[in-house]
């Protein structure tokens, strides 16, 4: 069937089987291979993209369900040729080795920072009433859906911390 998706600000018309996952639509039909397939089961996070600013596992959702949504993939995180602060921080903090989890980590972390800034609690948030600082423990918990088999977690957390602290302490994180 014909589907029109809004991917990274561009409208893309695709002819898809109705059962095509968003991940397969991106990789196999829209030519955007940045999003990775690690498990195809919603268990590794390599396929994470943002839909209307919220992170989802694109292997667990069907493309046809997202006709009117704004989809952002790793290819859409930079402004033109300028990498986002988070992308730059991943490079400077060695937030990857093989790089296969990186697109998912970046999409996940971008949306996660926004969730935290809006005060959404996580499983380890002690105080549900007041803004909780984005501690390393909070970051780890909130990023636990994105596996890195190379175990670059220290670099990933540092990179996210740097990006979180950068824009005017919006998140209420500790410096």
């Amino acid at each position, binding site marked *: 069937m014909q589907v029109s998706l809004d991917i990274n600000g561009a409208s893309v018309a695709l002819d898809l089987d109705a059962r095509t996952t968003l991940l397969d639509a991106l990789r196999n039909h829209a030519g955007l291979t940045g999003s990775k397939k690690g*498990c195809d089961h919603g268990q590794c996070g390599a396929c994470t993209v943002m839909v209307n600013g919220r992170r989802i596992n694109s292997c667990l959702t069907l493309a046809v369900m997202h006709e009117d949504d704004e989809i952002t993939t790793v290819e859409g995180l930079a402004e033109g040729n300028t990498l986002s602060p988070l992308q730059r921080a991943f490079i400077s903090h060695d937030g990857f080795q093989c790089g296969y989890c990186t697109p998912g980590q970046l999409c996940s972390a971008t949306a996660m920072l926004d969730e935290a800034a809006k005060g959404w609690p996580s499983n380890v948030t002690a105080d549900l009433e007041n803004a909780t600082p984005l501690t390393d423990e909070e970051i780890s918990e909130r990023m636990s*859906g994105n596996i890195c088999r190379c175990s670059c977690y220290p670099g990933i957390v540092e990179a996210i911390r740097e990006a979180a602290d950068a824009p005017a302490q919006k998140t209420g994180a500790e410096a």
Partner: protein
Amino acid sequence: MSVGKALPHDSGPLHVSGQARYVDDIPAPAGALHLAFGLSHVARGRITKMDLDAVRAAPGVVMVLTAADLPRPVDVAPGAHDEPLLSDKAVHFIGQPLFLVVAESHLEARKAARLGRVEIAEEPPILTIEQALEADSRFEDGPRVWTKGDASGAIMGAPHRLQGRIEMGGQEHFYLEGQAALASPQEDGGMHVASSTQHPTEIQHKVADALGLPMAAVRVETRRLGGGFGGKESQGNALAVSCAIAAHLTGRSCRMRYDRDDDMIVTGKRHDFRIDWEVGFDGEGRIEGLDVTQYARCGWSQDLSLAVADRAMLHADNAYLLPSARITSHRLKTNMQSATAFRGFGGPQGVLGIEAALDRIARHLGLDPVEVRRRNYYAPMTEGEQGHPHLEVAPGETWQEAPEDSDLASRGSGEDLPREPVAPATRNATPYGMEVTDFVLHGMTDRLLETSDYAARRAEITEWNAGSPVLKRGIAFSPVKFGISFTLTHLNQAGALVHVYQDGSIHLNHGGTEMGQGLFRKVSQVAAEVFGVDPARVRITATDTQKVPNTSATAASSGSDLNGMAAKAACEAIRGRMAEALASLHQCEARAVRFAEDHVEVGGDRISFARAAQIAYEARVSLSATGFYKVPDLSWDRIKGQGRPFFYFAHGAAVTEVAIDTLTGENRILRCDILHDAGRSLNPALDIGQIEGGYVQGAGWLTTEELVWDERGALKTHAPSTYKIPACSDRPRDFRVALWDQPNPAASIYRSKAVGEPPFMLGISAFLALSDACAACGPAEPALDAPATPERVLAAVRRARG
């Protein structure tokens, strides 16, 4: 200076923007076909009937192949010729490929593969160690046994004796990028293969063999892997060969990737081990004799198991001088996935055996476990000792004709060319007779105990535990001494190809593959160092069997050691020629020409490197060179277990603190301090990344990662939903990693040391800390097995309580 700098990974900007291409990201050539295997659902038996009509009739299916349909017998084993690509009627494990489906799409191929009706006359599978021993189901004629002195006599005569057993599970690689390959037919019968492999030469060899082509007609390219960890040393053969055969038969490009569950069901994993040990020691905890028996479940085919089991034996001593030892190794053949290489390659299993024994000794004598370890250490490297008693290449090498089709480039090929063993070494020697001359763990231990505040924390933990009935904490130290070199001696060679273009840009190619370890960056730093240029001038290119032939797998931690040296040789050859050309123009000596800071200084002039390249070109100087390197000074007889299999040893030490909940067995790593010996690091940032990653992966192996097969031999943990890989929140809360920055006494590349595998074994300290926490629950021995899942921790707590 570019060597020694903490430069980021070479593909950083590509990774963060999603532009870094892996095999399955390569745009499909027009008309590309997709492949999937039909798999066995029985662990052992013979195929009596294969009805594949429904498969052939399924939508999109172009071709279905069984072993009988292949143009020639096709084997995908890395050496032993015991792995037919598709079953030849015999069925050896659940997940074995029986037939191959070629279809228009990945999904159609997979769906069709499910439609096969295969009848198999089942036989009882051999799964457990007991079953394998009973049936004498093993590789090689019997157990391998290496001895040093009279271990039994020493144990009998020792003041104290203990014996024990530790079981340790295997480990799924879970490289985040699954196995993948893409083959495209070329003119004149040639084949191009893109493969996610650590061993392009082996893929080339196996594809050539399958198609009846000379190796020169097959080209294999590998730009990067989304993780390898040993799982892509031999396990990619089946996919690449299938793609090549199908491409050959259809004339179309063919690609294949395993779905994650298939990947876990089909491919080999780390060998699980049982280790029985008996040790005799004095009242101070000094070992007098050790008798170790290792049982490895190798799965259905030999793969690299002999070399893995050898390395487990080679590390049965870890960092400790054993006055006498007997090491026995059983390589058992079972109806399971064929266990394969995994970071450490048997080393971690060997090390865990003796570490468990040392902890028992310490608990038995009521001594601090660190002190017991220190007393058993090898003697330290002495000042001025260069770590090289045998600088000559072993004399009297004899060459034996290899069997015609043997896969010489693989660690699975078993026998090495025979060599004269070096004279058995004396006092400070390993059980296999290699003198240890570069041992630095004494100094490292002192420093780590100090920086981690070990003594005070141990005292504090003991006190805290006394007042905490439910939660218990534990702390442990563990060292590692890891031998660097392929134990199949002839694999210790590498090649590189370097071009300097007339605009001064540099093209670098070598035989190693990039799987995240930062090899390409490190080798580019070496090239930049030789030419005295900015590393940005060095263009890193995909590993390609057409550029550098006859490469060894990127494995055994040897990537930068071998390829760095080869690249250095190539760069030095070109630099030498450039210097001569410039010197003769300036009528000075070539020796006086200096390459630094992106410039060349010659006869008082300072010109840019680009200008120098242009001048050399105009002077008709060849600006292209190959480089070659072979590791000197190795000599090893694996049957006798005697010789000098390693170029040098790399060391590391860790202190880990954990907490357990004695009601649930749940546990956490609270803090980890590591001091690791990377020699004079080529790139401290990349090395620290390897150390952190290796530790977490090692700790994962021994804590959360549990493989479970049912009684039919089916792997039940075949997805990340049931197989727990460490996540961000599983890393140590407090993680402090430092480098022991002393130059390698062996003449390695810029005196650095290999760093891929050794830190994996530091994860053992997490396991020992859990064991320590369990031991704090009562007077008895907890006898914790690995992986220390909450269930096992709980059982150990009960045992400790007595």
